[in-house]
Structure formats: C-alpha cells, structure tokens
C-alpha cells in the first residue's frame, strides 16, 4: 500500500492543487508499468503483457479524468514541466519519503510483487470493509483511495458552500473537457460539469484501481463496452500475474462467495526478456554511444508526448490524436533501446529513462560556445 502525505483542502485553490497532484500521481505509475511491458515485447508473454497493458490504459484514463476534473473546477492542468516526471527510482508524487521507492525496471515477478502490487494495494484487501467515509483528517498518511475520497468530500463541502451563495466551483470552460468518445468510451471518460459527474468520475478511478470494498472485480458500471467483464482491479490483476493464475469467484462449502487464484494459467517465460539495467539515465551513457542517441530520441518523444497532452487538456481536446501518435513513437524508441547494448554495463541493454528534455537540444556548453561567437563575415 502506498501512503501519501495527508493534505489540507480548505479552499478551491487547495482543491485544485490536490487534483493537480492527482494528475502527477496517475502519470507517475505509467513509466514503470510501460517499461515493464516494453520488455515483454516479442518474448512470448502476451498474456501478462495484455494485463499490464490494460492497467496502463486505465492509468491513462485516470490521468484524463483528473485533467477533466481540474478543468471543470477552473484549474489548468500542467503536464509539461520538468518536475512533472518524478525521479526514478523514487517515491511517487505526494508519497511519504520513507515509503515505496519505485524503479524503472524490466519485467520480473518480483517487480510485480514488491512494487506494482504495493502501488495498487488497497487499504484493506478484499473482504475487510473499507470505510470510505472514515474520518482521515487527523491522519498523517493516507492511501490513494483515501486521497481521492478526501477530494470528493472536500469538493462536496466547497460546492455546498458555493451554492449557498448561489455560486458553483464548477466554473471551468466546458469546451476544455476531453470527452469525445474517441479513445475512451463515453461511460468512462465524460464531461465533468457538476458534483454528480465529478463524483462518478472519481469513483471510476478508485474502483478500477482498488476495486470496491467488497469485490476485487471492477464494478460492471465502470467497464467500457469493449472490455471483457469481469475484470479485477489493478492490484488483483498484478496479483494474477504474480500467482500465474486468473482470479475467479468461488463458492466454498458454506456457500459464501469468495475469490481464488485458481483460474486459467498465466504462463511466464523469462528467457527472452531483455536484460535491461535498472533505472537507466540518459546522461549516464557516453554521448558518443548509440545508447545515448536513442535515449535522447526517446526522451524527446516522451517530452513531446507530455507537450501534446498539456495542449490537449488546456483547451484543445482534439490534440489527443497527436498524443496517440507519440505513444506509439515512444514505444518504437524504447524497443530500440532494449536492443542497444548498455555501454557502461557489459551484458546489459539500455532502456528508456523517461526524462524531460528541454525544447532545445543543445548542451549548455554548446550554447555558451555559440553565444561567445564573434561576428565573422
């Protein structure tokens, strides 16, 4: 279970800050999940890859929901600043310092168990009822689910107060909502314009991430039409991978409904997974190495992806199409890195580092050199 620092929400500004934090948090899981999934390409582990891919897709949905929410309450999502991407390895945004350290690493069952399941772990796994309305104001640390529930509770309070003054906190421009049904079904990604739609949207995030308090499977209402029901929440999907078995509903002797990892096999063959050195960094590679060049191209495309998402959620929702193209582009560069030897570590291959590269490719030294150039004709 990942624990976040408790936050104070007592004004519309602090609510917006909290939702921006949610955007950063939703994004932060994507690089580690994507990297693990990249390393499964063409390794014969398609079943596992599909499961991780489905989680990544939902994290992207959650990111989009959080951006819609922030726009709805009159904020402006920020997705393209250097600090937007967390340091890997490191805690997730908003996480407590002594908490979980998340790496960029190749797929392994240990990674799933120690890191991915830990990120997604609900406060109380399955049959212990999660009291969403429990008072958490006095807690120092809260779970992701509690974090979102806190947003809902405070949003409600702020909206009630606003309405007493014949006002609303949902002051955002409706045209900024990304809800075109193009890439996510409209049941999952819809316009947020009032308390009901906001609460419904946040509950999708909580449910897909943690499951409901009584059921590890995602509420059928929160499934897209293309999604095969029933689908476990993220934590249980990762546990399926770890256990190598699908999660199924079982009835025990006392006819109580329970759940067990006794479904179809989810096979794992580690033999072809590329041996990527953990937590690659562009500047660790010598500048004259193919690893550096491809790392730079990867990061440039990744930064471009964040730029396009920033534009998407700052008034031009159709720009999501450009972001889609970039999502495939980063995959191609990641796969290239995974076939490029790591120049510093014999026996290893390079990997994607998910670093923000500034708009201009020149190094500081190159810039200085150029600026000191004297006119010569």
């Amino acid at each position, binding site marked *: 279970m990942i624990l976040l620092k408790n936050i104070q929400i007592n004004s519309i500004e602090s609510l917006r800050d909290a939702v921006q934090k949610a955007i950063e948090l939703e994004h932060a899981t994507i690089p580690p999940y994507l990297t693990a999934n990249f390393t499964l390409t063409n390794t014969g582990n398609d079943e596992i890859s599909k499961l991780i891919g489905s989680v990544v897709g939902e994290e992207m949905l959650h990111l989009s929901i959080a951006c819609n929410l922030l726009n709805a309450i009159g904020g402006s999502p920020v997705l393209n600043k250097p600090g937007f991407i967390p340091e890997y390895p490191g805690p997730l945004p908003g996480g407590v310092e002594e908490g979980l350290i998340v790496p960029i690493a190749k797929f392994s069952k240990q990674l799933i168990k120690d890191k991915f399941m830990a990120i997604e772990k609900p406060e109380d796994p399955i049959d212990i009822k999660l009291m969403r309305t429990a008072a958490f104001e006095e807690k120092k640390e809260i779970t992701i689910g509690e974090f979102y529930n806190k947003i809902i509770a405070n949003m409600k309070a702020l909206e009630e107060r606003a309405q007493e003054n014949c006002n609303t906190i949902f002051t955002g421009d409706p045209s900024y909502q990304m809800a075109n049904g193009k890439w996510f079904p409209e049941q999952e990604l819809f316009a947020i314009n009032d308390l009901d739609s906001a609460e419904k949207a946040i509950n999708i995030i909580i449910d897909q991430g943690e499951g409901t308090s009584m059921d590890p499977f995602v509420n059928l209402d929160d499934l897209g039409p293309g999604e095969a029901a029933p689908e476990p929440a993220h934590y249980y999907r990762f546990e399926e991978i770890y256990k190598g078995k699908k999660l199924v509903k079982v009835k025990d002797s006392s006819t109580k409904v329970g759940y067990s990892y006794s479904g179809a096999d989810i096979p794992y063959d580690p033999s072809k997974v590329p041996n990527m050195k953990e937590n690659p960094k562009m500047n660790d590679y010598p500048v004259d190495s193919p690893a550096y060049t491809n790392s730079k191209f990867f990061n440039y495309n990744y930064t471009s992806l964040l730029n396009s998402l920033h534009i998407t959620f700052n008034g031009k929702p159709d720009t999501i199409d*450009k972001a889609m193209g970039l999502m495939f582009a980063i995959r*191609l560069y990641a796969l290239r890195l995974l076939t490029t030897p790591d120049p510093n570590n014999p026996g290893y291959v390079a990997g994607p580092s998910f670093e923000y590269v500034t708009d201009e490719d020149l190094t500081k030294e190159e810039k200085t050199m150029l600026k000191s*150039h004297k006119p010569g004709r």
Partner: protein
Amino acid sequence: MSYLNTPRLTFSGKFQADPSTVNNDPNHFNNATFRPEFQDYNLPGNPGTNGWWNPDGTGNFRLIDCVVTSVTYQDGTTTSNPEDDAIIGMSVMDADGRVAGKIVDLDSQQQGVSEIWGMQVRIVDDGNDLMTGDYKEAAFTNLWLNRSTDIKGGAGKATASYQSVITNINWNIEQSNSRYLQELKDASKDMLSIQFTVDRYNLDHTSAEFTIGRLAGSIGPSSTLEPNHCVLGRQMFPVGSNCNYATAVVDDSLKTITMDLSNALQFGKVNGKVEVVETRNLTLAINIGTAEVPEYDYIGKINYRVPGWYMQQSGSCTFNLSKEQLDLVNKYPLTIVDYQASNPNTLTLDPTVTQVFNESAEYAIADKFVFRLNPKEQCAVNFYATELGKIAANKTIEIQQAPYMFDDPPVPVTGVPTSAIQNASQVVTNEYGTAVLEITAGDPDNPREFIDGQIYALTYNLEGQSFSGGNQNNFISLLVFDSVKQEKIDCPTWEDLQPTMQQYANLYPLMSKGVFNLAKQEVVDNNAKILKFVFSKEKTDPNYMPATRDLSGDKQKMILNYLDGILGVIDCETKETIA
C-alpha cells in the same frame, strides 16, 4: 522571393533521416520469396544484402541541433552576433508536440527523390516557440554522389538539397525583441521559403551518429506568385569537374547578388576538420562576351576558404554590384571561373581562365516534380521558364515519357504500359512565365505484379534545347497505382487484405515486431480502432499510415471498409450504416 532574398537567415546543424531499408530492394516486395533474413542488417562487408543498412528504421526525419548562424536584414546589412540580434543562436527545430516528419521514397524503383512529409518547423528561444509552421512536403534534388572526398562510397559521400515553403505559420515574437524576426514577419507573414542541403550521412548502425548527417540551410520570404521548390533566379551549371549546381538571385534595389553554393563544392578533411577542398580560385564574373569568345567583368572571389564558412553562411555568399555591374548582370550570363593568381591584382580580361560554372541562361523547371496518382486522377505540373533569372513568357516546353530513367530488369519492368499516363507533349508559358501540364492517370493494371502500380518518368526541355542539356535532376516522377475491383473495395474479406498487410509486415519490421503485426488478422481485428485512425489520416499528417505513402486509394478504401466492418460501423452486404 525565396530563401535567397532578404530578410534571410542561415541555420546549420544536423538532421536525422531514419528510413526503413527492407524496401530498398524491389524484390523484397514479393511475399512469395520473402525470407526472414531480409529484415536483418547487411551482411558484413556486403552492402545491399539482407535488409540493407537500416531495416529497423522508424521513417522519421528530424532537424537536430540546428541553430541560426547569421541574418541579413531587409536593407542588406548582416550580422552573426547574438548581441546585435537575439535570433542568432536560436534553435531551428521540428515538432515537439506531435510525431516527427517522415522521410519517404516515391518507390522502391525510384529512390532518387526522397520526400519529407508532415514535418513541423519551429524557431525556438529558451523553450518558447517564436515561429511554428508546417513544412510543405518536398523531394530532394541535385543529388550529388561525389560530394565528400574523405568518405568512402554510398550515401555518406553524397549530398542533396531540399527546398520548400513553410505554411500555417504562427508567430509569437512580441517578447523576442529581434529586429530580424519582426522584419521577416512583416515581409512574409503567411509563408516562408526554406532550403537546406544535407550531407555526410552516417550509415553505420554501430555508431552514435547512425542515421544522422550534416545540414546547412536558409530561410527567407516567400510569395504565392513564385514556385515553392525552386528559385526564379540564375541557374549555375557545373562545367568543370568536381562541382554541382548552384543558384543565385540578383536584388536590383539592393544592388546585390546572393548565391547558394551549398550543394556546389566538394568537402574533405583538412587538418582533421571538414572543409571545402576546392583548390581552384573560384571567382564570380559576368560573361559580357559570347560563349565562344568570353569576356569577363569580374564581380568577386568566392570566399569559401574562410574557416567555417559553410556552416556559418550555409554555403551562401553575397556580392555588392556597382550600378554598371547591375546593368550588365541583367543583360549577360554569369559565370564562375578559376581566376589565376598569376595575374595579381588585375581583374581584367584573361583568356586563359577556365570556366567552372556557367549560367543556363534560358531555363525551364517543374516546381513540384514528384506525384502519386490513382487511376482517373489528375495532377498539375507547374512549369516556370526564365531567362537570365527573369520570368520568360511564350516559351514552349516539350515533354516526353522516359522509361529509361529507372532501373533495368531483373527488377520489375518500369514505365509500361505507357498508356497509363496521358499528357500534352508541349505547353507554352503565359505572361507570368508559367505553364501548367495536366497529367491524367489510367490503370497500369499491375505490370509489376508484386509491387502496386507503376512508376513513370517525364523529361522536359525548352524547345530548341535537349533534356540532357538541362539539369536532369528535375525530371518528373510519377507513381500510378493499380485499381481494385469495386466489389472487393465494398465488401473486403481478410483474404483480400492479407497480401498487402503481409507486405507491410515484411517490409517494416520495427512496426510489425514492435507494434502491430499487420499480417495477422487477429492483430488487425483487435486494433481496428487505432488502425482506422492512422489509415484514414491525410497524407500530410505525420501519423498517416503507411509512413511510406505507397498505398493506393483503392486499397486504402478497402482496408478502411474492412476495419469499419470489424468495428460494426457498416454492413457491407446491405451497404447500410449501422447506427
């Protein structure tokens, strides 16, 4: 107006061209004989084998580490000092909010006109876009295989030039305080002319610089009255050895002549540095005599020996003209001679000088010269005729089909059936010096069997001249696609699509191994939504699929109808749209 007119800037740096090369061999299109090793890198020491030098290419074309190196203002003054103008040192970049532009061959059997599609161009200062615009797709020209003497054979030794226009421009220069940018915007707010020359390309896939080469270019004003891909100017043809085409523009009001030699001179290593290795004393002159008995009025020496000249000035140089010279230059052809230092300080008639470049005084050129056509489609070739750089009316341009321009068998036969393209055999320029040639495509009916459609070449020349006497780089290349039976388009089965999809899976391994293996029905069916998205894009969109832009209109419709069937959008039997 063009990149050679003021207000102009020069920029230089590097480029990346990352094409997939499995399709460099036409026979790799044959699914029946395709072998997995065709997706591997060259056999060691054996270029042109297996998947050639870059089987895992992404197709991307990028501008890398390019910076503005100098500007020339509207009034002809110039600077390369950032203290004079903040534009100096700013970056010239491609997109950072969408995928990169693409480098695209017209056809496996016409790889000499590679185009850039879908590229964005930006002028960037400290993370702020001051100018963004779309690069209009353009093919390179003036390919010169013998450019770099220090590089052994192949594309690394070669050079070529791209000229195009930037449109859909957004300006954001209020904060920049750059006099140059303000002048450029005032002069040419809606469209800019851009040219760059690329060379010293790295084909070694073990190198950090793999798929990267050197780039030097210029940006200047543009006008809808002028061509997009060539300059209405003075066309300098190489007559000596070891040089290539150059272009110049005379500015009557500034009394200057600006010459682009970026693709004209040879390079090599001098004391470990890459410099021009031209040893002749190149001097620009006006030939006020005749071709047979020349008489020279000298304008000035070409300053290519200044260290760093090429990357600093992007291979261009500007000369001031006296009033008399301006009159002469508008009456007589230019020439570049090897001026002998044995006649010190006397820029006078010297019959012993050797001509290195001569002006092609009467000149005709097709602006855009690469076309893709589906059966029954038409394209318009815009010709321009000039005389000493000025537009020339009432000039007859003759056009011929020229199947010999492409490779001979054993690769599939090209240029037949000749009946699949119809066009007039001559056109005459109007008062603006332009003429339009309409070309109508028929159905080639699959003469190349395993490659869709057919390629055709049209050569042209001014009446009284010959094609071989002109610049042969600019002949017209056409790819005419085959048609598909209407019932297959309307109601396609997977079997109808499979050969085409198999071909893409074979030829683009990075895509088929890393993203979608299009040869597999389940993959196509499961990804129908995203595939419909990319297959239905405009060709100018960088996300357009296939990146190679070699899919016929009929096959595109067939694929989209198939995907719509999978997505449940249309029922092909009843032709009804399902709500």
